[in-house]
């Protein structure tokens, strides 16, 4: 092995390695740089040149032209000098840049962005990209005003403004970025939001609890600047998801068949254990035997004394309409029924639900008919009222006629005394008859009739008619259809499925903190350690379930562009890393494999382990140096990993060297027989015969023939 490298070949090889590594580094970083600058340009194209634009407006594609016209109008009329430019359209959404002229880059303008762009046709929102700026994420509303004031006092800050839950700090110049970031971080450090979370089910008066907690803290740590700032802002998505899961479980639970167990005296049921019931099966339960396929298996969910609740996890009582009362037994995990533990009541909730729905459907059908009939009735009533009123008027007229008649009689205007008498008698008789029918009434029937408020009656009738019309307008048929659909599409879930779902949800929820009420305390100055706080607050509130978290009042984020540039930097480093690997494999196969196969042949089979080691080291040296020199960095790949990868690549190439680069043994043997040294054989015979490549090129310097 060493002999092979004597007389100059070592030098040749060192030069080869050096050049290989340098070219590899240039190649890898070059490719990475090219990709990087390509993307860099693309990004400039996407988000504009630095500081050119302040806002990206997202517009529905179909409204693009209208939006553009409107934006240009706003630019021309309200903010002379403003720039509008269209950029890429992604997934049905067009994007416009909007850049305010310098004098309009103020907090007032930035905070009124929603108002300014509200009327743009097809607007789907906007993203603020004003530069140079620092983004503070998640600024708690309780500190926003104070924070704005303090941040605007920092040198280099032009102004700060609210953008949703974030705050953007606009700088005079990019050069202030680091200093301002540092100072903003210092300011943010002075605010701490101590958050107490109560598990679900706890009803907490956030006001009172907040005051209580402040007292507890001050008792423990002396007076501090504390404020209850519990906000009504909603928790994050996970919280929402967990809440949804809890709701889902509750729904499923209410939907599952009810299993009420009455345990026998001396029997203690425990949560989670399995019991078995005959259910609707024909197979009787026999202690000491195995349970049948269609027996109901029940898991105990809750135990209170001798009462327990459970859920069916195998089998179904879907066909049952009435409550089932049966004996219940213990079930061993191998399926053996061991003993009677009590009795159970099973109720098919879904049957009950279906029943209820069917009942209400009947009702709805009736309502529909009723409305129809009522409408007819009102119409009739109106007609009757009309007749009635007509009759009343007639009655009035009659009375007047009769009064006149009476007067005429008494004044002797009648034709004859006989006639007068008869009429008088008749009239008196008539009035008396009417009076006799209603002796207790103080008013005469006529008066009663006259006192009826016909108009009021009419208007209330009209009201009823209207309401009935409303009922008819509500498309009762459609509602009936919907409810029927609901009934039919009620999940055709068996108890078994419900049971399994509930268990699945329980398993998932077991590891999660279920969001409940929360109380937030703003702590100014020295922050409190939530780990220390937790036991104190638990004790103080006498509630062992409350959890304490420390939330920052805001988090400084690098701005979008530097974030993207950082990302690009990462991508570049990764590409360089990948290129280093590709380069190493390539150069080993194309160039070094020739050396490897020569070495293997010259050293012979017995010393092949040396060639393996040699190849592995060569691979590792090339890869590692190229990797480091090209500034490569693949995420999660550390230098030792690169070294090992290089060893592996080198080893594989050495083992397969003859496949990649066969050498002509006859020529080598001729060289040996002619008294050529190994380096001469390499230079004059092996390398010139190999593939044109780096090694071949370098060899030209030394090659004599």
């Amino acid at each position: 092995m060493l002999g092979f490298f004597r007389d100059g070949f070592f030098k040749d090889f060192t030069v080869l390695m050096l050049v290989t590594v340098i070219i590899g580094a240039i190649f890898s970083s070059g490719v990475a740089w090219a990709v990087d600058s390509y993307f860099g340009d693309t990004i400039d194209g996407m988000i504009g040149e630095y500081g050119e634009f302040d806002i990206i407006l997202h517009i529905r594609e179909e409204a693009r032209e209208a939006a553009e016209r409107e934006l240009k109008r706003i630019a021309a009329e309200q903010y002379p000098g403003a720039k509008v430019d269209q950029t890429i359209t992604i997934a049905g959404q067009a994007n416009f840049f909007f850049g305010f002229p310098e004098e309009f880059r103020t907090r007032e303008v930035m905070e009124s962005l929603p108002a300014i762009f509200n009327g743009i046709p097809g607007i789907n929102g906007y993203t603020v990209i004003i530069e140079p700026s620092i983004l503070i994420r998640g600024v708690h509303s309780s500190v926003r005003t104070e924070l704005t004031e303090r941040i605007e006092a920092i040198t280099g800050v032009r102004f700060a403004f609210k953008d949703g839950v974030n705050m953007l700090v606009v700088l005079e110049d990019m050069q202030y970025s680091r200093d301002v970031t540092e100072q903003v971080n210092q300011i943010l450090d002075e605010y701490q939001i101590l958050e107490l979370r109560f598990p679900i089910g706890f009803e907490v008066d956030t006001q009172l609890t907040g005051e209580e907690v402040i007292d507890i803290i001050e008792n423990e740590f002396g007076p501090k600047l504390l404020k209850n700032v519990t906000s009504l802002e909603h928790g994050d998505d996970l919280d929402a998801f967990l809440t949804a899961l809890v709701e889902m479980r509750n729904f499923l639970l209410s939907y599952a068949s009810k299993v009420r167990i009455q345990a026998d005296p001396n029997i203690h049921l425990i949560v989670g254990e399995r019991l078995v019931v005959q259910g609707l099966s024909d197979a009787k339960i026999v202690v000491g035997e195995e349970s049948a396929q269609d027996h109901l298996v029940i898991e105990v969910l809750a135990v209170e004394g001798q009462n327990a609740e459970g859920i069916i996890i195998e089998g179904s009582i879907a066909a049952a309409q009435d409550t089932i009362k049966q004996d219940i037994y213990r079930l061993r995990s191998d399926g053996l029924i061991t003993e009677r533990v009590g009795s159970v009541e099973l109720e098919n909730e879904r049957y009950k639900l279906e029943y209820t729905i069917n009942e209400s459907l009947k009702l709805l059908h009736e309502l529909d008919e009723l409305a129809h009939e009522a409408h007819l009735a009102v119409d009739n009533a109106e007609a009757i009222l009309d007749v009635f009123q007509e009759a009343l008027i007639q009655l009035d007229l009659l009375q007047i006629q009769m009064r006149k008649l009476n007067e005429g009689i008494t004044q002797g205007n009648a034709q004859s005394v006989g006639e007068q008498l008869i009429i008088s008698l008749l009239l008196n008789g008539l009035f008396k008859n009417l009076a006799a029918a209603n002796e207790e009434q103080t008013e005469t029937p006529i008066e009663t009739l006259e006192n009826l408020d016909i108009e009021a009656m009419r208007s209330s009738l009209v009201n009823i008619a209207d309401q009935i019309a409303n009922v008819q307008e509500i498309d009762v048929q459609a509602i009936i259809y919907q409810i029927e659909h609901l009934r039919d599409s009620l999940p055709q879930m068996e108890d078994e499925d419900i049971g399994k779902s509930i268990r699945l949800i329980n398993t998932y929820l077991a590891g999660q903190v279920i969001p409940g009420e929360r109380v937030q305390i703003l702590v100014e100055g020295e922050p409190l350690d939530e780990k220390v706080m937790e036991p104190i607050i638990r004790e103080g509130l006498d509630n062992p379930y409350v959890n304490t978290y420390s939330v920052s009042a805001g988090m400084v984020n690098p701005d979008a562009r530097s974030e993207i540039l950082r990302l690009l930097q990462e991508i570049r480093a990764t590409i360089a890393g990948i290129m280093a690997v590709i380069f190493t494999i390539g150069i080993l196969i194309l160039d070094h494999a020739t050396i490897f196969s020569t070495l293997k042949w010259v050293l012979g089979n017995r010393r092949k382990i040396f060639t393996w080691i040699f190849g592995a080291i060569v691979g590792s040296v090339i890869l590692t140096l190229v990797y480091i020199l090209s500034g490569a960095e693949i995420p999660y790949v550390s230098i030792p990993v690169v070294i090992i990868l290089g060893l592996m690549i080198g080893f594989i190439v050495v083992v397969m060297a003859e496949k990649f680069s066969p050498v002509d043994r006859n020529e080598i043997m001729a060289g040996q027989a002619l008294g050529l040294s190994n380096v001469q054989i390499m230079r004059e015979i092996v390398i010139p015969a190999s593939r044109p490549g780096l090694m071949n090129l370098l060899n030209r310097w030394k090659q004599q023939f």
Partner: protein
Amino acid sequence: MLEIKNLSKSYGKLKAVDGVDMKISRGETVVIMGPSGCGKSTTIRCINRLTEPDTGEIIVEGKNILELSDKELLKFRRKVGYVFQHFNLIARLSVLDNVMFHLVLAGLDRQEATARAQLALAKVGLANEWNKRPGNLSGGQQQRVGIARALVGNPELMLWDEPTASLDPILVREVLDVMEELVQTTKTTMVIVTHEVSFASKVADRILLMDKGKIVEAGTPAEVFGNPQSEIGIKYQRLIAS
């Protein structure tokens, strides 16, 4: 000038050469014959250490070849001409370069090397083909280039490993003619491995018959072919008679 003592070489369990002894004087032409696989090639390859023997001694002018340093070995090889069965020419080099390149690499002036190479090529009748690539020559011509290459260093010892074995029968003659002439005109010591019985009878001072890694018979062609003692010798005798 060359003495081999108890030379052995094994490939795994196979004893390719099994205790060979021979003594060759300066200017002598020794032909080694024997059936295929009996260890002839291995034996002569051991002489210039193209194959490293396991045991034994190879003494050339009082020096044990097996104990030479790397540098001394190279120097020794330059004085030994070696002709291969498969010619082993360098495909990418011209005929002339094939014949002279090792001289230049050994430090000889290019011009002188060229002159000597042209002379050697003339000796094998290829003076006009100097500019061709080996691939454009016939097998016989290629082997003659191989011979010229072996000759050009004015070797004191020439080793021939079946120089005609891979040639068309009609091309064998031209190579044998060159060889015969060389044997007759130069005083170089020659060790020739060949199957050409009549050629061997004509040029050999001594014939060694090998079988299974051992020398089974040695003597002048008349002795070996006229009155063979070994099984192999008897076979060769029959071959000539037929």
